[in-house]
């Protein structure tokens, strides 16, 4: 042990598997949240439990949650401020290169895999102390209250290499289910991968880069919105009236009909 680290991170990983999440198309439907809940309740480790599921204060373990934020763009110049926007923000473990949740783990239960960079919890070694959840700046870990172990996104490590699944299904459950196609999975360590290309093309961003965690997951920012009136100078000629008077309109109509296939001109 050196530098106060309790569990070591690999110096580097062979691949950097992760998610690219498109905030421009995420409609906030929570399909990914529940698909994740379903798969990970039935699969890796302990089921994701729920407390008081039909009661006054239901709560449960989720490895992926969607938060919604209202955004108010600033006014520019003399123009009034554009309309407020609503951004849906799915969040799960970002499988950071410098994952503080791993280095803080007192038992070695939390670790980052050398082969693909996935951060996992070995539940048999987890004592449920919660240090990792405290150290994660993203709030991406949840202690399962029924099992007393820390749960987190596994990037569906039990799907992505699973020989029992058709090859097309060897992707995380959240990616497979996303109706809007807003979630992408791949090797972000390979600049030629589809996900890396997408990040490059769309200006993909790190979440809270100032925390120095070097998250692998990336977010694609929403496209600019509410710009249609900006184009009116270009578009205005399209709306030039064909005639100022109704009789003129019918004159235009006659000429236009003549120009149709089979017409008189």
């Amino acid at each position, binding site marked *: 042990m050196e530098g106060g680290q309790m569990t070591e991170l690999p110096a580097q990983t062979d691949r950097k598997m992760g998610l690219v999440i498109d905030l421009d198309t*995420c409609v906030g439907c929570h399909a990914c949240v529940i698909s994740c809940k379903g798969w990970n309740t039935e699969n890796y480790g302990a089921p994701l439990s729920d407390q008081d599921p039909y009661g006054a204060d239901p709560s*449960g373990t989720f490895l992926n949650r969607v938060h919604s934020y209202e955004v108010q763009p600033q006014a520019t110049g003399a123009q009034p401020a554009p309309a407020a926007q609503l951004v849906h923000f799915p969040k799960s473990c970002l499988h950071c290169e410098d994952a503080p949740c791993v280095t803080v783990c007192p038992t070695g239960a939390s670790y980052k895999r050398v082969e693909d960079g996935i951060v996992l919890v070995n539940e048999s070694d987890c004592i449920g102390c919660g240090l990792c959840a405290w150290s994660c700046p993203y709030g991406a870990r949840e202690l399962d209250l029924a099992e007393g172990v820390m749960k987190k996104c596994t990037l569906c490590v039990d799907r992505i290499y*699973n020989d029992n699944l058709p090859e097309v299904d060897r992707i995380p459950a959240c990616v497979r289910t996303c109706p809007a196609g807003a979630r992408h999975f791949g090797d972000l360590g390979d600049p030629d991968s589809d996900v890396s290309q997408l990040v490059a093309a769309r200006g993909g961003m790190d979440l809270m880069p100032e925390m120095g965690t070097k998250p692998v997951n990336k977010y694609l920012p929403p496209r600019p919105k509410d710009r249609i009136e900006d184009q009116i100078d270009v578009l205005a000629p*399209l709306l030039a009236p064909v005639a100022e008077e109704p009789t003129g309109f*019918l004159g235009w109509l006659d000429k236009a009909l003549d120009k149709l296939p089979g017409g008189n001109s």
Partner: protein
Amino acid sequence: MTVQQPRVNTSPDVSEEVRQTTCYMCACRCGINVHMKTGSDGRKQVAYIEGNRDHPVNKGVLCAKGSAGIMQHNAPSRLRAPLRRVGPRGSGQFQEITWDEALDLAVSWLEPLRKTAPEKLAFFTGRDQSQSFTSFWAQNFGTPNYAAHGGFCSVNMATAGIYTMGGAFWEFGQPDWDHTKLFLLFGVAEDHDSNPIKMGIGRIKARGARVIGVNPIRTGYNAVADDWVGITPGTDGLFILSLVHVLLKAGKIDLDYLSRYTNAPVLVNASEGPEQGLFLRDEAGKELVIDRKTGKPAPFDQPGVRPDLHATYRHAGVTHRPVFHLMAERYLSDDYAPETVADHCGIPASRIRAIAAEIARVAFDEAFEIQQEWTDFRGETHQTMVGRPVSFHSMRGVSAHANGFQTCRALHVLQILLGTVEVPGGFRFKPPYPKPATAHPKPHCGVKPDCALDGPHLGFVHGPDDLALKEDGSPARIDKAFTWENPMSAHGLMHMVISNAHAGDPYKIDTLFMYMANMSWNSSMNTRGVIEMLTDTDADGEYVIPRIIYSDAYSSEMVAYADLILPDTTYLERHDCISLLDRPICEADAAADAIRWPVVEPDRDVRGFQTALVQLANRLKLPGFTAEDGSAKYQDYADYIVNHERKPGIGPLSGWRGDGSESGRGAANPAQLDRYIENGGFHVSHIPDAALYYKPWNRAYQDWAVGMGLYDKPEPYLFQLYVEPLRRFQLAAEGYGERQPPDHLRARITATMDPLPIWYESDQQGNAGFTVNALTQRPMAMYHSWGSQNAWLRQLHGRNPLYVPTKLMRENGLSDGDWARVSSPHGEITVPVMEMAALNENTVWTWNAIGKRKGAWALDENAPEATKGFLLNHLIHELLPPKGDGLRWANSDPITGQAAWFDLKVKIEKAAPPDGMSESQPAFAPITSPVGTGPKDLKWKVGK
């Protein structure tokens, strides 16, 4: 130190078996893979549910609700056995009985009605998906009183679409996702059309297409729209007609399309008298147009005809003008100029112009061609298919207003003027649509004791002669559908049934029989009033509505108000068919249908409702269910699905008919369900390439549709910019014809049933001082409320504050978590508020049906849904405020009868500090739960 990694099994067994069926938690009807594992009891159990990649609807994806199906299937609110009420109505006190006892009891009530007065049974099914079957049952029982839930949902959209162009949105058609470049959504709540819309928006945004959302609330699809138009509720029609005005004035319309495929050139009688406004027809009844080649009238479908949009025709002293003439006259008026409508719609004129310009640019400057030859109904062959890549989608938001029918008409007309319907890049029909109003049945109401009804209940009227009136002119149906009050009520008026039955207006009934319709809670306007009607007694102490039978799978609020409960199964325990005779699941490229089958057997004494109906029919010996020798034709619903023939060779399912090689038409095939199961639960018949577009006029499509059994013969038709049946009602209101409306309705019929789209403000009488619009929608993760309050989903949406725009928060001194008193002319509620900026500044809204009654749905009485949750329904009445004329005026569209949920206007005030008030008001007393409450903990893992 070397990193020691634990070994992880990255290839665990996923499941022992995958059973493929159809989801049923909303109207989307996605294909699902149900992964089965052997549970601790040694039986195969549901372990995991995911989307079916091969399915035409969802292509593998699945929404939150679909993925949470496992919690729906194991919900503690599932009913367990038939129940007979033993306490007073509303108490929730029941006794479990056997199915034999339940069916005998139902028969003892129903048989005497059938023998003497079948109309005394009112049978209404809620969010059901087997309407071709339930209507068949009701028809054979002989009652005219049958409908499903369309009347309180989106009948305006459906009916306006069918009268205008032979179909509407959603199950009727879809945008051409492959080619569209500009997509406009009008009034689409975030739950509607669930996965296909999300998939489509994702696809078109990925290639840079623009999405414009028109909605007072910027959530869901509107949150990802490139441009948001936060319109004032109820003014969509005015906005749309302003777009029409600008586009027409600029000549940005598709004249070729209009002249060939619409009734724009059809001649309309312009002279006063009984024919004014009706089409000029030849002796065969064909609409006439002026042929530009000859200048003379010719039938619209004559080979080689070049219909004129301009020329008028004078004959026998009567002038006839083409429809397009009338349209130009109306919509070129400055009444529809952006500057005129801007304030009313809450949209700056510059924005209306910019949107119109963008529509024009994409429709005409980005037009393209697909190299595909096709032949139209006049016999003309076209070398290519011309694409106009602008598409629209719309649902309840524009529909659930008292001006909704005409607003929906306006939207359909806008698409047609642009020439974007049934062309590449535009809006495309899905089989069995397109199907014009004339190809649908008319409503039937001929009742005779001990006989079947004289035809299907629901249909499309073409004039006063088709109304469902008795000889004395009074309504034949309990919901007053197809009467002068709402002549085109093609889906019935479910929201008026209890109110009318209680009032004995137009007559009294004996038994109310309902399915999946939570009428004592969120499915009714005026919830408390409906509860009182359901429990009201007469002078003899008898219930005013004497008997109520109800079927539901879950312990909904309505259960407590029935006398007999027939417990339904969950969606994984039942047979169903998603039929081409019903609400199809087709794609624009293919006809498709699907089944559900019991992937698990029920562990309770419950039966699929449709099977219970078959068993009731057999005990009643209903004609359609009884063979000539008196034996039962069908043992259960599965038997019906396979063996029923609606017409010779046409049954509920189109796939694997006859010897298994036939699609569409063919004899019943006893192995049909097995073939569906082998194929993943669905069947697809692809449309030939030459038939993919221009379906209403495309010979190849028409021939294919006849072969599939969708049509009896080719039925090409013109899009109806001008809807002549509307004009026939106006003529009656003007005093022409034998069948005359009551005098008090003449002015309204004349004003609203305009054959060209209009916009009018809904009736504001009684709304003085109530100036804020109030809306609801369901969350995306919980599309439809019929399937219980799911343990996983309620952690996402277990609370429903009233969302209030920033301006109204400030004006009323409100902060998040404060309480507000919200009142309407009808009632008052006190509810928690939350600020929302991305919202029309004069509109409040909340999630619908998150509020639950204590004792329902197996929830704890302290669940937030039962304490803080609330319904806006308490503020909405099924009748408009009294006008002092002694008459009952329904809070409905005057043309279709659609419930005008979104016409609600309220006043909002900060409520006194919540001293001891921890619950939303009104708070209702708990009902006794027939199923108890759910478990304290959940750790749902089937496998080891």
